[in-house]
């Protein structure tokens, strides 16, 4: 007897080391999994931020510009017509010629002029139109540099590469170095990036138009999805009889939440554009599609919020003679509203980041103008990111990352708001 019990115990004891090792391995695997996940978060954020932070500054060159009426080709005219069609590029050219008098060859000259952004003459034009009395005067003006120069100054173009492998040859690099030595090259805050619409020139491109488009689309979504979502939740939770019809609606909503977003895009294309004849590329259509997508999120969150209101509240209201409708709207709804708002904000955040359905309804157009209303053609912020990600210029990589940073900032602040709302109003009954 004694012998046999010791042998069992021995067996157990002998296996213990192996089992504990297994236990440790298992634990380590769990830790590794979490570390992997966190590593991905870190990798994602560092790669985006390290690529994108520099886009918030843009290289400018200070040029001495003389608003010479002769060079502008306007003679004595000072009216809007003459000023708006004047040759402002000539001013920039003249100023550059003054700095680099030794550059004489036409081909080289052209390279020289290309150092300054093609948006610079427009800037001068705006200045002069705002204040025609500037004609004849002399000013030192910071003008945006071309994107290649910008990349060179920011160190994104490798100077050690052989000349043929670089986008800029040694001569241009020499010019930039000379300008830098003169102290007329500086990195200024890139306001264009936040105010401008799209452009083929990276230094002139901005996310202003895309943000406006996203804003209109989200406004439509909010105005439609919140009332409809809340009404649906109230009906299903408080009024609907428990029958097959409500079961069907419920299953439907759960499934709708998991339908791929691109299918909603197909729906939008077929229904809103082909059948209803709404304009393509309009934030209104984008908003309608996003409404259908966010509805399930809002409904599910609102139902959960309604469910968490204890029945005693309803019973008390009904007990003192309130009707069912009064009970819901005067007593239950106010208690559930914070939860509904939280769900709505999270749904809006999802809608803001959604891209695929917007591609289907034509919000991928190249839109330079900032949309003035929900019917103007426009893009949305994530679509702008998609468009820029395809562009070959190095400067667009930087701007794409910066646009992603702006998008993530919006998303994170929306989610934080939702968390704060929940913390502030959460009530345990």
């Amino acid at each position: 007897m004694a012998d046999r019990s010791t042998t069992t115990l021995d067996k157990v004891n002998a296996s213990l080391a192996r089992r504990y090792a297994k236990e440790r391995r298992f634990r380590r695997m769990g830790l590794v999994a979490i570390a992997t996940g966190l590593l991905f978060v870190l990798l994602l954020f560092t790669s985006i931020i390290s690529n994108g932070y520099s886009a918030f500054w843009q290289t400018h060159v200070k040029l001495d510009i003389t608003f010479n009426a002769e060079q502008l080709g306007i003679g004595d005219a000072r009216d809007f017509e003459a000023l708006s069609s004047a040759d402002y590029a000539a001013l920039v050219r003249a100023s550059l010629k003054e700095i680099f008098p030794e550059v004489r060859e036409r081909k080289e000259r052209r390279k020289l002029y290309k150092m300054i952004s093609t948006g610079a003459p427009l800037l001068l034009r705006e200045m002069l139109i705002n204040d025609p009395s500037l004609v004849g005067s002399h000013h030192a003006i910071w003008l945006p540099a071309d994107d290649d120069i910008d990349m060179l100054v920011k160190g994104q173009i490798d100077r050690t590469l052989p000349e043929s492998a670089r986008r800029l040859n040694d001569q241009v690099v020499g010019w930039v170095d000379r300008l830098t030595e003169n102290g007329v090259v500086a990195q200024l805050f890139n306001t264009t990036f936040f105010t401008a619409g799209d452009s083929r020139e990276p230094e002139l491109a901005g996310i202003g138009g895309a943000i406006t488009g996203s804003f209109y689309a989200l406004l439509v979504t909010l105005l439609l999805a919140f009332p409809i979502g809340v009404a649906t939740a109230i009906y299903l939770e408080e009024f609907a009889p428990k029958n097959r019809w409500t079961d069907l609606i419920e299953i439907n909503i759960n499934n709708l939440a998991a339908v791929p977003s691109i299918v909603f895009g197909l729906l939008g294309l077929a229904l809103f554009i082909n059948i209803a004849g709404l304009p393509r590329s309009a934030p209104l259509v984008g908003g309608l599609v996003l409404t259908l997508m966010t509805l399930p999120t809002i409904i599910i969150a609102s139902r959960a919020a309604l469910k968490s209101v204890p029945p005693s509240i309803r019973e008390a209201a009904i007990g003192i003679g309130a009707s069912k409708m009064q009970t819901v709207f005067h007593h239950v709804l106010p208690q559930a509203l914070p939860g509904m708002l939280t769900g709505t904000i999270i749904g809006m955040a999802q809608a803001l980041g959604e891209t695929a359905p917007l591609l289907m309804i034509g919000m991928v157009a190249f839109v330079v103008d900032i949309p003035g209303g929900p019917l103007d053609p426009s893009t949305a912020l994530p679509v702008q990111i998609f468009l820029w990600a395809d562009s070959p210029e190095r400067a667009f990589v930087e701007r794409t990352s910066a646009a992603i940073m702006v998008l993530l900032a919006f998303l994170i602040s929306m989610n934080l708001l939702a968390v704060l709302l929940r913390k502030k109003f959460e009530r345990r009954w």
Partner: protein
Amino acid sequence: MQSTTLILILLVLMAVAFQLGRRRAYNLPGLGCICDLNSLPIYHGLYTAIWCGIPALILLGIWSSIQTPIVINLLMNDLPAAITAGLTPAELSLVLNDIRNLAYGNITSGEISPELMAAADRYNQLQQIGLAAQSIVVISLTLITTSFGWRFISPELRARNKVESVLRWLLLISSTIAILCTLGIIFAVLFESVRFFEMIPLTDFLFGLQWSPQIAIRADQVGSSGAFGAIPLFAGTLLISFIAMLVAVPVGLMAAIYLSEYASQRLRTYAKPLLEILAGIPTVVYGFFAALVVAPMIRDSAAQFGVDASSESALAAGLVMGIMLIPFISSLSDDVINAVPQALRDASLALGATHSETIRQVVIPAALPGIVGGVLLAASRAIGETMIVVMAAGLSANLTVNPLDSVTTVTVQIVTLLVGDQEFDSPKTLAAFALGLLLFLVTLVLNVVALRVVRKYREVYE
């Protein structure tokens, strides 16, 4: 935007009607005390406002949807024979398009003849008349119905009950929108798909091994086969989804196990939200990350080993998609693992099992249906995911299982077929809808099964 203004006017009128109704309830002749009223005066106000607004809104909706067809009908009947002579219906609709473009000041396709110009003017004129008539009729309708409502107000009027039943109807109508949306998806996609299958046989689509949707402009054009076999697309989708699940399931599941079984409270409070950040990042960001960081990394490291990898490899897209799905799997598994009753764990530990043995032999088997449901949901996500593959996967429909090759997916093809110009009579555009239908059906089946599995499991311990 005339109808917007009209709706705003209606809202103002409704506010006025609300005030009128409420005042009238207070000042009803022969009313001694407010308590003689059946309902509170606010309900009389709402009652009048409903009378004012609802019929007018319904009329406005119907009118807006039928005005343009009627105008077009009138216009087509009046068109001079010089324009319409000998035209097929398709050409006629082109002419109509030109007229409308002309009327809106857009670019037209052909030359502008004086007859077209006159027709465009007439179109504008008819639309103007229609809109003017619409405003007048709608506003007079509100006045009539409001006066009705106003007249009905009496001490005996059960205003609250009536208002509440209208509200109830509104709630019911809202709840059907979800159903209408699903029906809309099915019909929109089905309708175009049927047109596609009229041109391309269903079997060619489902079992064809070749996908090249270009349609020949000339008969002898190279590569103009116009083959619509969906197998390579589904193979590509499955390859990428499989890679994604290979990343997401082990990492997500182990993370969930560690967080719910081992982790200290502090690690849980920090690590969980940090992991869930991954779920909130838009897919377009993942796509950019895949194309900018992961794909070059894979290509370079493959080159180190002397292997040739495409810069649009399935591996890159799958890997990044897997990262996206980690929090999805981990939070779903976390829920089901937490739902396993503590008594099961206690019993196992009391028998001398180590913690990991308990997890592997007791907790996981008990939670398995829920975990499987979560994995299925994640798989349906992976199949329907668009932006990552559009940005990181290729366009060429290769039938391969090599993860370093470039493959294309269903969603990528839908996007490439539909972005840009669309002609809704060519199989190229319609193919996107057929693909969409397949995608919808596949994900629907996965979701239904997954939700079933999850729900069934939940019932066990409750």
